[in-house]
């Protein structure tokens, strides 16, 4: 049923704004199909139909830009191969160097020692300081990696950020009562975070179907949550094979689940950032 009145006009205005925005996202030489969709939008009976039609331009623009990137000849082959590797290595190594240096300065300043752990004189006498360094350093590493367009390094730092954040919360919540259990939980958290980031990176980068209309490609958040759940299940299963005590502890369970979910969401944001940059045609595929 045609919808008239204010809402119809609003939808019509939105459709035209969206079309204008979509045109800005495609290079002039690649606009044939978007122009075709635009011309057909004039056939819509009312504003709502037009808006529904124009919304289809979003996946179309994504497809157009993806095809254009795939067809682009590689510019400066050696440089194109080496530059991303150097950016990734620099982002990972540089971040670690900063964190290690900051921890070193902090241990001198607070007159404590890393190896003492939670013993008197250990660094865990100052949990907030060292947690801030660990989390802040990792987040900074992720931001720098994104700025350098070093996507692999960004995912790497996402995993470390998650591990350090959840690990710090876990430690502050429960303390280190026995080291073997702590070690097992750490392993599970790191595994879950890694699985989460890797699965979501695969979800983001895989062309799901020839039409790009599969369930997972249309519901990214759901895809990320599914990836997080699968990561949690995988890490939990692997750790159960080695340390059955871990599974009896609810806090440890939450830490592992939190790591998987948090990593999946962070990795999704990194992928989204990459896609946005790609739409402008400026990203270097890593």
């Amino acid at each position, binding site marked *: 049923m045609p919808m008239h009145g204010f809402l119809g006009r609003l939808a019509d205005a939105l459709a035209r704004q969206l079309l204008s925005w979509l045109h800005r996202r495609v290079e002039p030489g690649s606009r*044939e*199909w978007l*122009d*075709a*969709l*635009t*011309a*057909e939008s*004039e*056939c*819509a009976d009312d504003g709502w139909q037009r808006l*529904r*039609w*124009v*919304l*289809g*331009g*979003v*996946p*179309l623009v994504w*497809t*157009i830009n993806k*095809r254009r990137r795939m067809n682009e000849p590689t510019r400066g082959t050696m440089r194109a191969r080496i530059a991303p590797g150097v950016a990734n290595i620099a982002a990972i190594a540089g971040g670690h160097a900063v964190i290690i240096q900051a921890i070193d300065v902090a241990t001198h300043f607070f007159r404590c020692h890393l190896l003492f752990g939670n013993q008197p004189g250990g660094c865990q006498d100052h949990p907030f300081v060292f947690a801030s360094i660990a989390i802040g350093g990792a987040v900074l590493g992720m931001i720098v990696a994104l700025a350098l367009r070093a996507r692999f390094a960004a995912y790497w730092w996402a995993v470390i950020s998650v591990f350090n954040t959840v690990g710090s919360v876990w430690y502050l919540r429960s303390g280190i009562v026995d080291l073997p259990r702590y070690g097992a939980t750490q392993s599970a958290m790191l595994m879950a975070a890694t699985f989460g980031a890797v699965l979501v990176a695969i979800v983001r980068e895989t062309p799901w*179907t*020839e*039409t*790009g*209309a599969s369930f997972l490609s249309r519901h990214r958040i759901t895809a990320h949550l599914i990836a997080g759940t699968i990561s949690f299940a995988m890490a939990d299963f692997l750790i159960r094979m080695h340390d059955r005590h871990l599974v009896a502890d609810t806090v440890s369970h939450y830490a592992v689940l939190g790591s998987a979910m948090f990593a999946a969401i962070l990795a999704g944001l990194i992928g989204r950032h990459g896609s946005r940059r790609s739409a402008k045609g400026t990203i270097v595929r890593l």
Partner: protein
Amino acid sequence: MPRLPNTSPQTLSVLELLLESPRSWHYGYALSQLTGLKSGTLYPILMRLADQGWLETRWTEPEQPGRPPRHTYRLTGEGAKAARTTLAEAPPSRMTRRLVFVPGSR
């Protein structure tokens, strides 16, 4: 096992429709209404078919003044042959029934 190209239910429904009158030119809006596919699904399919040489495209003058030229589509000879083969070989489960029918093309 990777899926063969152009065998998704959506692509099959487009091919089926284009084959009904292979020498006629079709508009995107009409194709969308007749197949029930949204524009975001239909246009990537048309793009791909055109890239593969199955579809020829042309711009036509608008029927009403003040409107932009329209893009129209029809199967090439090779495309029609390939579409017939693809539809014949497609498993019945992949075939979709068109749910929407709007008489005439705009």
